[in-house]
């Protein structure tokens, strides 16, 4: 296999893995809060978090560019982050795009846990954190893994926001989606087809895992 394809494959996997790791902890906490909390304003927060699902990826990329730019609040002269045109920038862009999917999955996974089981844990003297660790998380784990896998898949296929934030630097930030785009631009259709086949196989495997986990999650949580 062509070195550029292999490079793009590993960069995609690295970026998607790091993006998943980045968005899972906040998605767990927020998902749990959305599933069980009673505070007003939950729907406003949930809508805000879902925006990247419906906004054009280029719009999200542009916002990130504005935030991470040299003059931006998170940029070199702001908080001091220097992520533009780096693979870490691609991670951030992919994480932002994948977050709503992971959050929705986490929320559904926690909602599927019978709240009476959590109350029973409390009645046996468990503190809230103990109930979370011993009951909620283990019972929701299949749904949570499915959510993370879905997020990984979304991050793997990210294109628009990544292109704007991290550019398309071969061996640095060039992911499979960016290489497909470049190959089509340059008329390298056979390599583009190889990449499409590779991404299709990956997507199938990931969706198959999600499907299996989602089916068994319903049985395991009650």
């Amino acid at each position: 296999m062509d070195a550029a394809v292999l490079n793009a494959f590993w960069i995609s996997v690295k970026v998607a893995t790091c993006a998943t790791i980045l968005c899972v902890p906040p998605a767990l906490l927020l998902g749990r809060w959305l599933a069980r909390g009673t505070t007003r304003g939950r729907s406003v927060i949930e809508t805000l978090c879902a925006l990247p699902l419906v906004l054009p990826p280029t719009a999200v990329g542009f916002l990130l560019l504005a935030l991470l730019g040299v003059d931006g609040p998170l940029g070199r002269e702001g908080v001091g982050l220097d992520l533009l045109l780096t693979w870490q920038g691609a991670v951030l862009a992919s994480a932002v795009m994948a977050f709503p999917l992971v959050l929705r999955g986490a929320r559904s996974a926690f909602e599927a846990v019978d709240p009476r089981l959590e109350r029973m844990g409390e009645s046996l003297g468990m503190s809230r954190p103990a109930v979370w660790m011993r009951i909620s998380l283990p019972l929701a784990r299949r749904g949570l893994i499915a959510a993370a896998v879905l997020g990984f898949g979304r991050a793997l296929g990210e294109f628009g926001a990544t292109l704007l934030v991290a550019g398309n630097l071969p061996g640095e930030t060039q992911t499979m989606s960016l290489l497909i785009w470049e190959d089509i631009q340059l008329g390298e259709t056979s390599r583009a087809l190889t990449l499409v086949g590779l991404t299709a196989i990956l997507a199938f495997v990931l969706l198959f895992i999600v499907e299996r986990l989602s089916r068994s999650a319903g049985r395991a949580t009650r």
Partner: protein
Amino acid sequence: MKLDVRLVLDAFELEVRFEADTRAVGLFGPSGAGKTSLLECVAGWRKPSVGRIEVGGRVLYDSASGVSLAPHERGVGYVPQDGLLFPHWSVERNLRAAEHGRGVPEDALATAIEVLELGPLLSRDVATCSGGERQRVALGRALASKPEVLLLDEPLGALDRPLRRRILPYLVRATEAFDLPLLFVSHDPTEVQAICSEVVVIEGGRHVAQGGPAAVLGAAERAGTDFENVLRGVVEFDEEGRAHLALDGGVRVEVPARGAEAGATAMYGVRADDILLALAEPVGLSARNCLHARVERLDADGQDVLLTARCLGPLGKPGPLLRASLTLGARRELGLAVDGGVQLVFKTQSCHPLG
């Protein structure tokens, strides 16, 4: 135990106030009466609109002084109708669940396993346990957590009647072995009589009666069509190897010798339908029990009559209350009336062990 609870739900209002000095209190009433909501208020799963909940001298909730202990601080052992076992754990891990909370004393765990005969189930996955086994595990989990009060919400309600009767002795033994303050919700008069020393009747969210189980549950409107008398006493054997149950007032009832243990306190059930009535002691009859009694109540429901009679001992001492069912025609023919004498006749084999 002092409960004063007002809880307003969407289409229902619960307002119950009672005080009970006995250890085991039954909450009796039809489905939808508010019994489970009341128990959930005690467990801290629901917050009353106003009120005060005091169990064993501890105030768990008091709206006036702003006290409202969190569920994990209340020290309750709760057994709901469906057991609510943790599905991702084995039976043993479920029994040890409180290790992550208020702790599981090894002696309490050992007693729970022994009394409820859970030893053979320990390594099983809870999903493979039958309904009766699941309820025994749920009860064991609550008892092993060394609670300060036990809340049992129809723990046998999801089981069919024969299974309920098989599990009842475990429940009786367990509640007696641990000797804890107990709130027991049920709409089965036999279970309430077997376990509780006092009963509070709740109907439509209101407290409508309170008293000893035999007196309160024997009212025709609560006894149902299949009332079972519960006799509790000490087992004694005579020289011929026959087993007798010594009841209050010197009343003795012959019970099946098989399974009876001399000197042990035991409980037997006798269905109201299994008791015959006679005006004089019958002769030439195989039934071994013929108790002299005085009629206290006669409740008629169409052609069915439920008679409540106080058994009398050899010296006329008052013994237990028993109920017998008969038809309106039989009542007329025998001329039965309140304060009149009657003989209650039933077979030894009509007495079946409950605990």
